[in-house]
């Protein structure tokens, strides 16, 4: 059991894993010692990790003075002490500002890629899951509804919907399809095609470009996990009904 806990770390409930009256460095020392790491090992890793996560300048401040994002990063750093083979993270980006969230995501990705750490995370933020996971497990009412590669999940529940955002108003005859919805907002038009083949969407795109419309964005629903999850939940609701 001792060896198991030496190779496994966890960050639970984000920013409540540290002692607020200790400084960032004191927290690292305390938890490092509890992992039975040598003093020199703790110091060396602390310098590297604090600098990587931009907490070096705040190392001697008490955690009570840290922002939520800083506490979150410190919790992850502490969990990374001793290079665990498996890292469990519970909602690691919850409540973080955009920049900190991106930084945490980037660090987790590099941790998995460079140090070959297995990162298991739970999150309600689907953009985070979408951006950094290889495999996903979807829980529904306490049971496993799906487990497998994230890309396969997106393909499996894709409804082949395409969304085009075009500058200005698009004439009806230029839409070239029946199964669509269009919505104008702030000088742009969002057109969503719900039943269209790959060939037809290419034809629509070509046509719009020939007609000199400015295409601002183009995406398929399977490119975003959030849309796929909506489709997945709708399908489940539909089956239950």
């Amino acid at each position, binding site marked *: *059991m*001792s*060896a198991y*806990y*030496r190779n*496994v*770390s*966890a960050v*639970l*409930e984000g920013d*409540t*894993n*540290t*002692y*607020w*009256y*200790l400084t960032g460095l*004191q927290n690292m*020392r*305390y*938890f490092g*010692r*509890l*992992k*039975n*790491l040598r003093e020199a090992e703790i110091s060396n890793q602390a310098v590297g990790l604090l600098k990587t996560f931009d907490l070096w300048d705040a190392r001697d401040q008490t955690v009570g003075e840290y922002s939520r994002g800083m506490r979150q990063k410190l919790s992850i750093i502490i969990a990374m002490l001793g290079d665990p083979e498996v890292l469990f993270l519970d909602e690691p980006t919850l409540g973080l500002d955009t920049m900190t969230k991106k930084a945490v995501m980037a660090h987790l990705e590099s941790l998995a890629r460079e140090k070959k750490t297995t990162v298991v995370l739970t999150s309600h933020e689907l953009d985070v899951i979408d951006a950094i996971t290889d495999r996903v497990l979807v829980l529904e009412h306490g049971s496993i509804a799906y487990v497998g590669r994230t890309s396969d999940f997106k393909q499996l529940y894709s409804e082949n919907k395409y969304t085009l955002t075009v500058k200005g108003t698009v004439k009806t005859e230029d839409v070239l399809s029946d199964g669509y919805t269009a919505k104008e907002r702030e000088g742009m038009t969002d057109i969503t095609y719900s039943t269209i083949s790959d060939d037809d969407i290419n034809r629509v795109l070509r046509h719009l470009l020939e007609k000199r419309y400015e295409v601002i964005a183009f995406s398929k629903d399977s490119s975003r996990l959030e849309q796929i999850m909506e489709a997945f939940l709708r399908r489940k609701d539909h089956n239950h009904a």
Partner: protein
Amino acid sequence: MRSLFRAELQKYCVEIRTYYPDHIVDLVTKFILFATFFYGFVRGAGDSATYSIGYMYWIIASGIVSELSVGISFEKQVGTIEQLTIKPYPFWLILTIKTYVVLVVTTLKCLLLLALIRVTLPIRFNFNVSLLWILLVSVVGFTGIGLALSGLTMKFAKTASFESIISYALLFFSGAIIYFTNMPTVVQKILDVVPFTAGIKASQQALTPAAPHLLPVLLWLLFINALWFATGYWIFSAMFRNVKRNGVLNNY
């Protein structure tokens, strides 16, 4: 193990430094209580050495009980308890080391208090090295009681609320205010096998001119303390298993 002790000691020192007013208030309160009981019940009527030993044991025992129940309750509220349960060291060992750190710090506080009492009150203290051995053995039993309370606090949020009752009950049974010989015989028999009171009695006997041999006293103390530690450990383990399976109760 040394690493664990160092970790807990340094953390506790920072905690004391951060919350130093609480410790000053605690010291002053304990001084006032000592003086009140001394002038109210002991002076002229009793044996001040007996009283002082009971009182100091009470400070140490209530410090340990408080740390292991209120401390766990605090860890639960701030969310650090889960972190302590997933470390290579077993959780009971972390708590036991915490107990010994509290013992070291509380003993230092006791010495400071004794110095203060010695300077301000007409009281003399005798010291015998046997007292130190008896205290060290008695702490084993306190740790068992502390572990049991930690387990209960982990599971039931309100356990820590009873800490004051336990603490003042310990004062009552410390023999500092009511001498053991004045208590009912049944109570005296029960107190003989409670590590806290057995330690106080042994310490009091060690200071008398006809002090018994230390070894048999220590062996008896070791036996009952080991028994209390084993019981406390068993309660803690049962609660910990339950918490791991069903989660902690955070309904305050």
